[in-house]
């Protein structure tokens, strides 16, 4: 069963080929047997999963099933889940049992989906390798010596190792797309405001966006149908009709105009990745698309801009973790200042502390204009580049990452070289646009991802293009050895 896509499993449940209890038990068994190798889960909720599966089977028997009823999925441990530890990959929240469900979790519960547990992630979603987790690094199922990408590395590894057919992720600067690329799966970051952020622990509020991760675009469409929509509890979510993302998957690509930003095809990109992307472009042309070169002149500025804005927001968002009301508190604080300093000093890891310090510095009196305000201006320029380009083409295409998965520990000594891995994904968050990554080949056994960037609210088109590509190719069906 585990080799099937989420869409196939949905059909199998509908046809009565197997029950949700059988399906759920299959995945729970796989997790128990295999996840020791990958460390992709922080918390497995077996008992709750089986109870949900039983309820899902009853719901199906009553004729009230949705496409996701009885489908086991995994949630990034950034989404609050009532009664279940929600750690955000941090020692700070190692003892935090969320007393409420995130809106995204409520929606999956309402659809009757089964939650297998909470996936590993970079601490507070800060990282591109999943090495900053308090719960240890996640191993890439394609090569356990390599990182799975981050920050949704646990969710990506879960899909690649077929420990669940679908998972949730969040993406602040590439945290869905980059691990999807490095693990050979499909993931989409929707338009900012498409998916509610309520109950999703904030890293950088103006950039964070939840989205689905799965083997195929078709699976992502099924998951996004459930996740998307206006939420009165999130003032930045947008009240706009959610289309049926599954309905347009097979639309023709005839006449589709694809822009190829010259900045995304520079020598900085690994040649094996460049050739895999070029082959995918040929495939899309064969499917009816036309391509042209475009320019996103401010691409390089996205890294300095992002690494001011995201840490600035983070420095404030993470102030609530102070050891006073919940979460980690140091032993025997001498006084209030000691309580703050040691609780935060001991509760946060190095990367989180680094970003809090960068952010607090950028917002300080005397530096605000030079850093925060300047970065906001650059953000506007980057957005204008995209808006201008998307007046001319339907979507933008390029590699998701400049390199395939790197070795665990390889970039730890040099955070900036790690930050540079996000150059193609960061700008999409700064502009608030939807972006999708899908597998398009391999570089010496490690998956290569291609990114599609669409216009605002054009998730359906991205999924449609990816689906048509996946109908014509089989990269998405490849699984690591032994899976």
């Amino acid at each position, binding site marked *: 069963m585990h080799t099937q896509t989420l869409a196939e499993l949905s059909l199998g449940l509908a046809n009565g080929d197997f029950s949700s209890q059988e399906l759920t038990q299959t995945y729970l068994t796989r997790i128990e047997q295999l996840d020791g190798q990958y460390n992709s889960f922080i918390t497995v909720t077996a008992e709750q999963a089986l109870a949900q599966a039983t309820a899902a089977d009853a719901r199906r028997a009553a004729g009230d099933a949705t496409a996701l009823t009885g489908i086991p999925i995994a949630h990034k441990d950034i989404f*609050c889940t009532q009664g279940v530890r929600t750690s955000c990959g941090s020692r700070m929240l190692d003892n935090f049992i969320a007393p409420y469900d995130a809106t995204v979790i409520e929606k999956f519960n309402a659809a009757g989906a089964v939650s297998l547990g909470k996936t590993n992630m970079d601490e507070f979603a800060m990282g591109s390798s999943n090495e900053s987790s308090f719960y240890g690094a996640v191993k890439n199922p394609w090569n356990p010596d390599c990182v799975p990408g981050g920050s949704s590395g646990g969710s990506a590894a879960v899909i690649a190792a077929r420990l669940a057919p679908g998972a949730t992720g969040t993406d602040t600067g590439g945290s869905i797309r980059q691990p999807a690329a490095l693990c050979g799966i499909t993931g989409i970051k929707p338009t900012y405001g498409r998916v509610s952020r309520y109950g999703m622990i904030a890293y950088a509020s103006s950039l964070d966006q939840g989205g689905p991760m799965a083997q195929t675009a078709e699976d992502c469409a099924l998951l996004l149908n459930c996740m998307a929509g206006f939420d009165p509890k999130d003032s930045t979510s947008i009240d706009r009709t959610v289309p049926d993302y599954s309905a347009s998957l097979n639309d023709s690509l005839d006449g589709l105009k694809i822009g190829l930003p010259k900045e995304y095809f520079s020598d900085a990109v690994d040649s094996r990745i460049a050739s895999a992307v070029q082959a995918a472009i040929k495939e899309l042309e064969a499917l009816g698309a036309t391509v042209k070169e475009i320019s996103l002149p401010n691409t390089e500025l996205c890294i300095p801009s992002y690494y001011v804005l995201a840490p600035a927001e983070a420095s404030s968002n993470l102030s609530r973790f102070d050891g006073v009301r919940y979460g980690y508190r140091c032993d025997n604080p001498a006084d209030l200042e000691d309580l703050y300093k040691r609780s935060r000093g001991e509760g946060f890891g190095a990367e989180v502390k680094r970003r809090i310090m960068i952010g607090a510095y950028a917002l*300080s*009196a005397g530096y605000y204009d030079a850093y925060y305000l300047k970065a906001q201006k650059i953000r506007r320029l980057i957005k204008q580049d995209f808006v201008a380009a998307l007046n001319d083409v339907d979507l933008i295409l390029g590699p998701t990452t400049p390199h395939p998965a790197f070795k665990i520990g390889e970039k730890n000594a040099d955070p900036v070289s790690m930050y540079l891995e996000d150059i193609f994904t960061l700008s999409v968050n700064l502009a608030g646009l939807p972006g999708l990554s899908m597998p398009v080949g391999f570089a010496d056994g490690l998956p290569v991802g291609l990114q599609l960037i669409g216009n605002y609210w054009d998730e359906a088109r991205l999924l449609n293009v990816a689906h048509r590509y996946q109908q014509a190719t089989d990269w998405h069906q490849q699984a690591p050895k032994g899976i």
Partner: protein
Amino acid sequence: MQWETVIGLEIHCQLATESKIFSGASTAFGAEPNTQACAVDLALPGTLPVFNEKALEMAVKFGLAIDAEIGKKSVFDRKNYFYPDLPKGYQTSQLAHPIVGPGHVDIQLDDGTTKRIGVTRAHLEEDAGKSLHEDFHGMSGIDLNRAGTPLIEIVSEPDIRSAKEAVAYAKKIHAIVTALGISDGDMSQGSFRCDVNVSIRPKGQDEFGTRTETKNLNSFKFMEDAIKLEVERQIDVLEDGGTIVQETRLYNGDTKVARSMRSKEEANDYRYFPCPDLLPVMIDDDYIDAIRATLPELPDARLARFKEQYGLSDYDAGILAAYGSMASYFETAVDACGDAKLAANWLLGEVSKYLNTAGIEIDASPVSAEALGGLLVRIKDNTISGNIAKKVFDAMWNGEGSADEVIEAKGLKQVTDSGAIEAIVDQVIAGATPQVEQYKAAEPDKRGKMLGFFMGQVMKASGGKANPGQVNQILKKKLDALCD
């Protein structure tokens, strides 16, 4: 040296919304600690704020009432600092784009003139919780019921020149927010808190001196005392050759002592930036006009009307028109008795005396405006005298019924039967031979003064019930007849 005092005020006024500014939790005062703090107020991970539009409406009302510019686009910012009763580690406030821009209020000075005080701005923000330092055995307790209660912070220009003016300004703002119904203004519960910025400079000097800020003054009396104390301190420091340190001070109203809380060097860098969880608040002219149409009569307009319509003095009108509750009590009583002067005298006299003694406000008076009107009617129609009316009022205050019921029950109805009065007068004259002789011996123009003795005797003999006008008339007639 002659010193001039310069004062600016920051007033934190709690808005009377039912729920908090960014969550659905109740704002009611006095509940068990932490029972009115929801997930958002506790700043649980993942929670997000949603702006309460009722708070916007109230802030706009205030802006219109002080003739201020209304911010068509206002932006919430985060003010970052750590404190245990600030759950998010930042306060959501407004910095660069407040909802209310420059406006002004007029205050009445003792010399009868009016002074205009500029209001720099008023912005929306959330209140913090409370730290409780007692009963926790060396630890502190945190009550987050108040966290997230909507406030407007009203910042004045440094236009104020004395403690008295500062109090007049604060009272005017207080009168406006209560007239608008946007705050209960209850200072004892912290609904209306004043911070005063005080500096002094040699008279005639243009630039300001170094200022200090004294925080959280929760009564007008404390505010006046704290300012006077601070001005004296600054004069002493400067005249001793010292310099004023920019600092935040705390005034203890009970001990009447102020102390330094923190200096400028110890002040936080708040690292303000626009809150990414909240969109800018955009409003248009239609919205503003719709709110303008709902504004009630404001204290200044009411003051002018009271003088015009009821012929009240500046002083009387100033007191009666300042507050909605007093003003409507007054107007109800006038409606009931048809005599504004009489109603004003009673409200400012007897009624105020009883209220002060009981330590209550007019809306808590056990004698309603209608009931007072009923009493005044009986003075007007000569059923009772003014003096007897005081007795009746006392009984009414003590819950013994309406004016008519008390008059009836106590038999206080005025004697207006002239035959009965004449009988008493005859009796008094007969028993006061020496005084009658003096009266007769006096020059006619001195006799008027001597009438007082006989008046007193007659009123006493009648148990106060004889109609004083009639007594006066009959006495005069009878005594003058004796002189002929």
